[in-house]
C-alpha cells in the first residue's frame, strides 16, 4: 500500500463507525436513565457477551468489510512486483478501469469492445434468464402453494430438493452430454431426419444459456413458493366469487402478495447467473462471451491481480445496481429479499 493514510482509513475506518454507534447507544441509555433496558453485558452475561462480540467482530470486520474495502483500494493500484510495492511507482491510478473501457491502460482512442460487449451480454442474458425462470416456476409454485393437497406438496418438494443439491459443475456436464456435437440432442435430430449436419450448440451459446436457465430454476422456485403459500386462500375465493377472470386474480391478488418472493428469487437468480463461472467455462465455445471467465483470466492468464480486482468490482457494481432496481421496482426492503 503506497499511501499510509488510506491504510489507516481501511483498517480503522470501520472500527470508528462501530465506535460511533457504541457511543451513541451509551449516550441514549444514559438519557433514558432508570427506564433503560439492561446493557449488553448484563443482558447476556460476560462469557456470552464476549463470545458475541468476538464472533461478530471477526465475521463482520475481518471477513466481510476489510477484504471488500481492501479489494477496492487494490483495484486502483498498478500491477507491480512485490519488491516495488509501497515504493515510488505504487501510485493511485485508474489504469485498470481504463483498460476495461478502452483495452489499454493509457490510450483512450477506441473502446475495449470485446470486454464491454461480454459485460453487456452477461447482464442482458442474465436478466432474460431471470424472467424465463420466473415464468417457468410461477405455475408450479402457485400449484403447490394454493391448489395441491399437502401430501402431493410433500412429494413434489422432495422431488425438487434433490436436484437442488447437485453440483453446478455436474449440471453443466450433463448439458454438455446433451448438447455436444456428438451429444444426445444431435443424435436425436439426425435420427429423426430433421438435420443432416450436426449443430454446434456449444459454439452457438445455446448450451450455455439453457444450462444457466436449468442451473438456477430452483433458486427461483423456493422463494416464490414461500411467498404464494402465505396468501390467504379466501382472498382468491372471494375474487372468484365476485366474477374475476383467472388472469386478474393472478395479476391483482397473487402477484402483488408474492412480490417479496419474486424480488428475492429474481435477485438471487440474476446474481448467480451474472457471477456464474463453471457453466461458461464448461459450456462455452471458443467464441463464447461471458464476463466471469474474463475476470478469471485476469488472474490466471494475465496474472494481473489489480486489474482482476477492478473487473470483479465492475461485476459487483452491476449486481448492486440490480438489487437496487429490484428494490425500487417492487417496493420491497432488503430484509424481504434476503431471508
Amino acid at each position, binding site marked *: 500500500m503506497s499511501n499510509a493514510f488510506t491504510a489507516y482509513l481501511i483498517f480503522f475506518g470501520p472500527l470508528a463507525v462501530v465506535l460511533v*454507534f457504541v457511543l*451513541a*447507544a451509551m449516550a441514549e441509555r444514559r438519557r433514558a436513565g432508570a427506564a433503560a433496558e439492561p446493557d*449488553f453485558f448484563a*443482558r*447476556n*452475561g*460476560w462469557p*456470552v457477551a464476549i*463470545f*458475541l462480540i468476538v*464472533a*461478530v467482530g471477526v*465475521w*463482520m470486520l475481518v*471477513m*466481510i468489510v476489510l*477484504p*471488500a474495502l*481492501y*479489494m477496492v483500494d487494490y483495484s486502483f493500484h498498478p500491477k507491480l512486483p*512485490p519488491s516495488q510495492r509501497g515504493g515510488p511507482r505504487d501510485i493511485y491510478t485508474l489504469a485498470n478501469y481504463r483498460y476495461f473501457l478502452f483495452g489499454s491502460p493509457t490510450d483512450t482512442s477506441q473502446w475495449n469492445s470485446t470486454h464491454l460487449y461480454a459485460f453487456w451480454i452477461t447482464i442482458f442474458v442474465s436478466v432474460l434468464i431471470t424472467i424465463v425462470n420466473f415464468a417457468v416456476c410461477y*405455475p*408450479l409454485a402457485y*400449484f403447490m402453494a394454493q391448489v395441491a393437497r399437502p401430501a402431493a406438496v410433500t412429494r413434489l418438494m*422432495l*422431488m425438487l*430438493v*434433490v*436436484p437442488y*443439491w*447437485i*453440483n*453446478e*459443475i*455436474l449440471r453443466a*456436464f*450433463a448439458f*454438455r*452430454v*446433451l448438447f455436444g456435437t456428438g451429444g*444426445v440432442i444431435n443424435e436425436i435430430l439426425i435420427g429423426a431426419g430433421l438435420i443432416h449436419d450436426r449443430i454446434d450448440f456449444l459454439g452457438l451459446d445455446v448450451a450455455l444459456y439453457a444450462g444457466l436457465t*436449468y442451473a438456477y*430454476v430452483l433458486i427461483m422456485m423456493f422463494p416464490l413458493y414461500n411467498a404464494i403459500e402465505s396468501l390467504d386462500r379466501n382472498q382468491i375465493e372471494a375474487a372468484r366469487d365476485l366474477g374475476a377472470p383467472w388472469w386478474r386474480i393472478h395479476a391483482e391478488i397473487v402477484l402483488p402478495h408474492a412480490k417479496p418472493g419474486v424480488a428475492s428469487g429474481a*435477485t438471487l437468480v440474476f*446474481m448467480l447467473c451474472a*457471477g456464474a*463461472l*463453471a457453466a461458461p467455462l464448461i459450456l462455452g465455445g471458443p467464441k463464447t462471451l461471458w464476463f*466471469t471467465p474474463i475476470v478469471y483470466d485476469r*488472474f490466471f492468464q494475465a496474472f494481473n491481480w489489480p486489474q482482476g*480486482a477492478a473487473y*470483479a*468490482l465492475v*461485476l459487483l457494481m452491476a449486481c448492486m445496481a440490480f*438489487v437496487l432496481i429490484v428494490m425500487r421496482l417492487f417496493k420491497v426492503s432488503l*430484509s424481504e*429479499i*434476503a*431471508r
Partner: protein
Amino acid sequence: MISRAVLGVYLVLFFVFLFGPLVVMGITAFNTPEYPQVWPFEGFTLEWFAKLFQDESLMYGLQNSFVIGAFVVALSVPLGLAGALVMTQIYARARGLYYLVVVAPVLTPGVIIGISTVIFWKDVTAWTGMKSLFTGFFLATLGQSTFIASYCMLIFLSRLQRYDRTQEEAALDLGASRTQVFLHILLPYLRPASFSAAVIAFLSSFENYNTTTFAILADKTLTTVLAGRVRAGLTPAISALAVLIIGVSVAGAVLYEITRRREAPA
C-alpha cells in the same frame, strides 16, 4: 377439465426438464464407450465407477472437500448464531447498516468473495509475518464461511422470531445465571435450527466452486478437480461420479426431511 390437462402437461414437462439431463447423464455412466454416450447402449459396465476410485487427485480433492466442509461448519454455525443474536439486541439505529453488512455476502457473486479473500490475506499474512497461514486450505475455509455464516444467520433468525422470552425471565427469577439461561434454554431451543444450519453449511461448502476456485490457490477440492476434468474432456467416469453424488444427495435429502419432521412437528 382443459385446465387440468394443461396443468398435467406442464408438470410433466417441468419434471422432464428437471430430471431429463440427470437421467441421460446417469445412463452414460453405465455404458461402455469411452465418450459419454446414451444410444446405442453398447453394454452394461461398472468400469467407470472403478476408475473413479483409482483416480488419486479426485480422491485427494474429495478428502479435502470433506475436511474443509467440517471446518466451515465449525466456523460458520457459531458465527451465524452470534450474528443472529446480535441482530435481536443491536442498537436500533445501527440495525439497518448491520443487516446490510451481514447479508451482503448472500447477494455477492461467489467469485468476488473468493477474490477479495485472496487479495486481502495475501498482504495481511505478508505484513504480519504469518506467511505460513497463506494456504488454500485456510483461505477456502475463510472465504466460504464468509457467506455460509450469513445463510446460518438467516436460519437462526427465522427460528428466533418465535422465541418466547418469558422462559428466560422464569429461569432468571428462579436464580439461573445469564450463562445458564444461554446454555440450558436458548441453545436447546435453537437445536433444530443449528442442525439445519450445519447441514446447509456443509452442503454449501462441499458443492461450492466459485469462491473456492480462487481461494484454494494451488490446492484442490473435489469441485476444482472436477471442473478441470470436465474442461479437459468428457469421460463417463464423471457421469459415474455424478450418479454417486446424486445417490448420496437423495439419501441425505430424505434423511434430512425425516429428521427435521421429527425435530419440529408442524
